[in-house]
């Protein structure tokens, strides 16, 4: 039979062995801290509407846990970089808001999270910049070729609509000038996202007056004046004598007004006008004038004196 002291010792021994066998070591953390988002960098800081920017997040976990990133934007989408989730590409949805906001949530392996936001400045859609190039004058009836030189700041594709003296839907067009004076060529350039620019060019239909040379003062009862008349534009001329001298000469007619296109070289036309003093007059004066088809007029003065 086991004695009292022996029994007590045996019980203590067994208890100590069992206690040692059942000891455990800690297996997990007693606390967990949220990740820390130190900065969010947006490059460029201002994004064009519908444009993109690079997002880079600087975040750490105080406990050294692995961290994960979630991105959200109110007016755009964000695509994380699969190789480096702290980086992402922001793409604006083009909805035309004045600003956006990116929210980054950083989560550790224990689901503790930290959230940070950064504003996104949005550059509104800008209209195309347009100039019209080309020869801006010609003598009717004529045409000029006009070129709309346009560029969109966002690089959007552009459409063209011409009106006025020109028609067409391409960047290049022809303006038809049928009259002397100013005609307008207008082009509407649109970028398809609300941006539009209207540009107008003034094309001038020019006309040079006929040139009549010769004439002058002669003495006597009568005299012959040798004149030359021509139109710099090559238009047809209608000529005649006006005044108080008694003049006669062949009616003058020049070449027909040319068809649209380059002006023909002017060819001076010789004209002889025979004039006499009226009876009892000591002197007289007349003008030999030519008028082109657009109303341009040129004259030469002829004077007789006894």
């Amino acid at each position, binding site marked *: *039979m086991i004695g009292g002291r022996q029994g007590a010792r045996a019980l203590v021994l*067994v208890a100590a062995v069992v206690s040692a066998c*059942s000891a*455990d070591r800690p*297996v*997990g*953390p*007693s606390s967990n801290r949220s990740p820390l988002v130190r900065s969010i960098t947006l490059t460029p800081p201002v994004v064009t509407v519908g444009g993109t920017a690079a997002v880079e997040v600087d975040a750490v976990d105080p406990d050294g846990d692995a961290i*994960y990133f979630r991105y959200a934007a109110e007016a755009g989408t964000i695509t994380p970089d699969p190789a480096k989730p702290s980086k992402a590409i922001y793409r604006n949805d083009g909805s035309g808001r004045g600003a956006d906001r990116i929210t980054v949530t950083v989560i550790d*392996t224990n689901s503790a999270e930290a959230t940070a936001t950064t504003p996104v400045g949005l550059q509104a859609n800008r209209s195309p910049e347009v100039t019209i190039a080309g020869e801006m004058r010609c003598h009717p009836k004529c045409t000029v070729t006009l070129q709309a030189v346009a560029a969109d700041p966002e690089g959007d594709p552009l459409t063209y609509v011409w009106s006025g003296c020109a028609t067409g839907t391409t960047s290049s067009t022809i303006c038809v000038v049928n009259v002397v004076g100013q005609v307008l060529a207008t082009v509407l350039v649109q970028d398809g996202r609300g941006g539009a620019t209207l540009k107008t060019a003034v094309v001038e239909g020019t006309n040079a007056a006929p040139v009549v040379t010769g004439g002058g003062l002669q003495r006597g009862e009568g005299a012959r004046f040798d004149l030359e008349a021509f139109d710099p534009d090559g238009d047809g001329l209608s000529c005649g004598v006006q005044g108080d001298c008694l003049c006669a000469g062949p009616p003058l007619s020049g070449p027909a007004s040319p068809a649209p296109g380059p002006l023909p070289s002017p060819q001076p036309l010789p004209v002889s006008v025979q004039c006499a003093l009226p009876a009892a007059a000591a002197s007289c004066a007349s003008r030999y004038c030519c008028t082109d088809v657009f109303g341009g007029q040129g004259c030469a003065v002829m004077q007789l004196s006894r």
Partner: protein
Amino acid sequence: MRAALGTLLLAALAADAGAQTNDHFFRSWRWVREEESARAAGLGGAVAALADDAGAMRSNPAVLTSLSRVEIGAHFVRRGNAETTGGDHLAGGGALGSFTIGAPLGPRWAIGAYASDIQGVRTRLEPRALPDGLTDEGEIDVHVRDAGVAGAWRAASGLTLGLRLAVVHASADGDYRRERSGEPTHLRVETAGGDARLGWSVAAAWEPSARLRLACLAEAGTALVVERTAASPWLGATLDAGSTYRMRVPGVVSCGTAIRVSRKVLGLVQIDRVRYGEIQSVVIIRQGAESRDDYRLEDAWEPRLGLEVSVPLHRVSLQFRAGAHGLAPGGLSYEGRDATEEASFLGSARSLAWSGGAAVVTGGFRLDAAVRGGPRPAWLLGATVRF
């Protein structure tokens, strides 16, 4: 002798490190030491000083020496459903509550062996919207059983010492999800596995007179390893490819008294000091930016009362029992600044479990039945033979 007892007590109170996590499927989890035999259940579990019953050896192995014959008992337990403070659902089920065999080995020694079902509950997390906009949903099934041997030694007249050694086995199987409508699951945590550890208790019983018995015991806590994984489809990441944590079975120190009021009436009073603080002191933070200190669960006193009235008839005796068990809050409550955690870990208030039972006793046979009400309702049936 006093030194030996002191050493044993200190060893029993030594806490293992590592315990449950703050994963939300533990939001309604609480440890309840459930009575595994019908007689113990009927007496409110106040059986530390109960003599002549092998079914009480788990509560106090020292009383094994009070057995006069070999005793074999088997008890069935049917746990009912219940609802927690936070509205989660607890589902029970049927199980073999305990199987015991005890035998005296002479005037000074007795031994016994047992297997018992300490706790078994499936907690279903009812969908509850939390302040962070997420909803938690899931369930966890936890089962704790043990099997062991016990020995008792009559050290002196009226004084008995006892030791119980057991293999405690715990299994957990569950998962929960944190979700927001229209989004992939934010967090999915799964736990599974089982583990077996040594458990033990030491006890002493003193019987200064035939009408009075005093008994105390110290039962060591145990930590059982369970596996955990976590993933976030929302993040497209595996957050925890596989880790372990420990289900904590807290230690307990109990002292009880059995008073034979008369030949027909037995009164039992017991006070337990349950070391719930062992659970809190080693909580592992696996959810959120929290600190262990934000969770509260403290050691608590739990009184137990029992009354047994025997009515002898011609060849049989009827016994009627009643009991009560004052349960302390046994679940974690959160007292930090995180509204979501505060809404998840609500803790629980003190509650009362009442019980009643009856038995038919003959010279070599006893048939017991008991019903238990309160936060963990159950009924039990048991049969015991003596020869």
